[in-house]
């Protein structure tokens, strides 16, 4: 076991981890963070997506021991200060169905908009191509991300606040 220190959703957490523990298992089973889901355990489905220093990554493919000193955001942290514009739009447009992919999709889309506030449709599709969804057919997801980006362009100040 080795002690690591991470900044999890804005709070510094210390935890001893075994060298073979995945970040997903540590988050879910040891830190009570249940929004990253295990859908395949091998990086195919994207349900375990989290933000590692702002970048969308698959937590099932990362060993916890590797992330010492890094900052992790999960869905629990995204809406901590009220729903983001993306979350609000996903609710309003009745986008998700079973919801199992939602956490990963929201984090991947948030990372995209943070880096590229005005993505084209193909950029949105590319950014979310690693997040499988079996229910929605993806159209409402892609449309909503584009609509939120467009809305943010009209209200730049508001978008900065909600996209922190």
């Amino acid at each position, binding site marked *: 076991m080795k002690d690591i220190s991470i900044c999890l959703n804005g709070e510094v957490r210390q935890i001893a981890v075994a060298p073979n523990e995945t970040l997903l298992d540590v988050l879910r089973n040891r830190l009570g963070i249940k929004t990253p889901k295990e859908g395949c355990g091998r990086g*195919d489905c994207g349900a375990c997506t989290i933000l590692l220093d702002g970048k969308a990554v698959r937590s099932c493919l990362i060993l916890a021991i590797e992330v010492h000193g890094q900052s992790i955001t999960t869905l629990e942290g995204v809406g901590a200060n009220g*729903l983001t514009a993306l979350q609000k739009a996903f609710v309003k447009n009745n986008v998700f169905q079973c919801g199992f992919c939602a956490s990963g999709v929201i984090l991947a889309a948030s990372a995209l908009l943070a880096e590229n506030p005005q993505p084209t449709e193909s950029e949105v599709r*590319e950014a979310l*191509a690693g997040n499988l969804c079996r229910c929605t057919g993806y159209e409402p997801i892609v449309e909503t991300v584009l609509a939120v980006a467009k809305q943010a362009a009209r209200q730049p100040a508001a978008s900065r606040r909600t996209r922190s």
Partner: protein
Amino acid sequence: MSKNKVVGKSAVRVDGLDKVTGAARYVDDLDFGPGLLHAVVVTSPHAHARIVKIDTAAAEKMPGVVRVVTGKQCPYKFGLYMQDRFIFPQDRVRFVGEQVAAVIAESPEAALRAAKCVEVDYAPLPAVLSLDDALKKNAVVIHPDLGNYERVPWFFPRAGTNIAHWRKTRKGNVDQAFDEADYILEDTYTVPRYAHCPLETHAVTGLFDLAGRLTLWASSQSPYAQRGVMAVALKPFGLSHQDIRIITPYVGGGFGGKAGVSMEIIGAVLAIAMKGRPVKLHWTREQEFMNTSQRQGVVARIKMGVKKNGKIVALDHTLHWDAGASAEYGANVVNAVGLSATGPYSIPNVKIDSVCVYTNMPPCGAYRGFGYSEFHFGLESHITRIAQALGIDPVKMRTLNAIREGDTLAYGAKMNPGDLCKAIDRVAKEIGWGKKEKAAKAHKAIGKSLACFWKAPAMPPNASSAAYLKFNEDGSMNLAVSGMEIGQGFLTVMAQVASEVLSVPVNKIRVETPDTDRNAYEWQTVGSHVTWSCGNAVRSAAEEVKTKLIATVARAKKMKVADLYLAAECVKSRKDAAFALPFRDFVIDGIMRPDGRYVGGPIHGTGMFMPEFTSALGDPETSQGGHPNVHYTVGAAGLVLEVDKETGKLTVLKVALAVDVGQVINPDLVKGQVVGGILQGLATAMYEDIRFAADGRLLNPNFTDYKIPTTLDCPLEIVPIMLETPQPDGPFGARGVGEHTMIAAAPNIADAIADAVDVRLKTMPLTAEKVALAMRGIEYEDVKGDNLGFCFRGRPCDYCFDVGGAS
């Protein structure tokens, strides 16, 4: 114009906030504390083998292991419609991946390590890995005790063979009609197995508490059916319905794969083995592919006779289904198709044989579409081919033969309302039917197609729904039903139905996921029937609440019941415009009369629904005389496809789908079913390509090798069209829509490929590879190799089922 205020509007999903915040909890998210035990199963490497000996001694000594369970402790079978599935196999294993034992340990890692140390001694038996092998003379019989299996009365297994069920439908005189037909086309179409691929794999945690009560937290579409199946199978443990409680939190996708019972019953017996401690069993993605249920593969031989004008006069449709090692659910898919394989057409002379065949492949069961996607592939392809051979417009031929309200179905009952012709017209217009389009590049070609679809829920005649509805002090409500929210928006639709009757806003009606101790009964969430069936139960519960609200006010205020009505969460009076008593003022505490006494009390309502007009007891030789289906939902879909002539790559430029849902309850949710269903259908047509090795091993049980679509694999445009010909016995006229949207996709693609590049594919999936080969004049059958998506060898045209074939 509809006078509905809530029904027909896109209410925000009642589970929307839960899902975007992560508040939604799925089985694997539930915490059970440090006492939780973890189980891992030991699986068979053989498709068919005798179990000689299971040695658990080494595994039991491993650190962290608390118990190893085998079939010795649990010699019981189970099944929804027929008890042919083993909790743990007894004398033999019947497919690769079947559970032969389970290790229970303090951690998942300890359980996994120990599972590898369970030594199983097998004596391999000849494996039945093709329909030909299953049906040949002196075939190896996979279920020697088939004749003794408990089953529903509408199944007709043949003891001593591998035929689990044979549904025959006979109408008119087929032989004579073929004699009189102007044109006959006969051909064979094959559809492989498919996997559901919900994002959440199956999971169950069981607790057999110290008082002897079994509670299961299960990822399930069917909590009550699970309790029912388990009460039968686990009776030897002294359990009855009252001793079993199933709690189903949110489910991460079902698509039929979480209907009935599969691995949950293993979780149940492991919990029973560990009294007092919760035990979790969580399928890996690989197990999700191999050991829940798959969609059955099928070989369909179609002979259709028509008149010169395109009128279909005779259909002989023979389907042999690869059910796998267990048909406890799959045989009912076969049954449903055996009744409905005419498709949505009025055909005077019909002969259908739908034969369910055991093989040593993974068990199959319900999958969105329940056999209809499979048979529509051949049937719709066939109709287009006949139209082209006769020089008739394939769309006109469909309209000519389209089923209409009141037409006699193949089994003798009458067709329900539904406007198929309008669906065909709308779709044809939307895709510019008849206008040939030219591709922008010379190496590409564009094709168009239009296919019809229909589907009825396949359910026992007494499948029923119930609902409990209660008020809270603030005028909000709880609705306790046991239909399952598997993503389709069921909870929201039920809230909308109650809201319409009671004027309580949808966001003030909390609809909870099922708990068999607390929520009202529901048969199962399958067959696209819960909006209709449970919707009726909820409406009836809401009507009871409405009656009580009005009666309470009438009594307390000495007003006439006939003068009172509900609006804006108040009881109002037609006689006194100023009178409005808010629900929150009296629904719990009652209404105070001038003398200080109170009238009323907590207001609640219950409702139930059972389709009392149905019966599954038709003549076994003809299916005439029963009324096995409640209603069909009909529709049509068309698409515009671009084919790359060099690579075979298929790009769907546009899809239009019209479906007659009776009454839209929530347009966003219907649209969700249309768009999602189309992509799932297109995936089975173009991308998903399951492969088994020659020894029955599944070769691609993961998303790297079994490709489901991503954001980059979608049609460029989808146009959902909702038609509303009311269903007289549906809530506000609604009928089901969930499964139907994927049914037309495969024939749509096949026909559009044929239209674009004049290549007719009759074996699914219709991959780019097959198109490219066909365009080079290479027969796929010649190069496909040994690893197949279903258990057939050789060419479809060579398949011969004389031994088990139609009689």
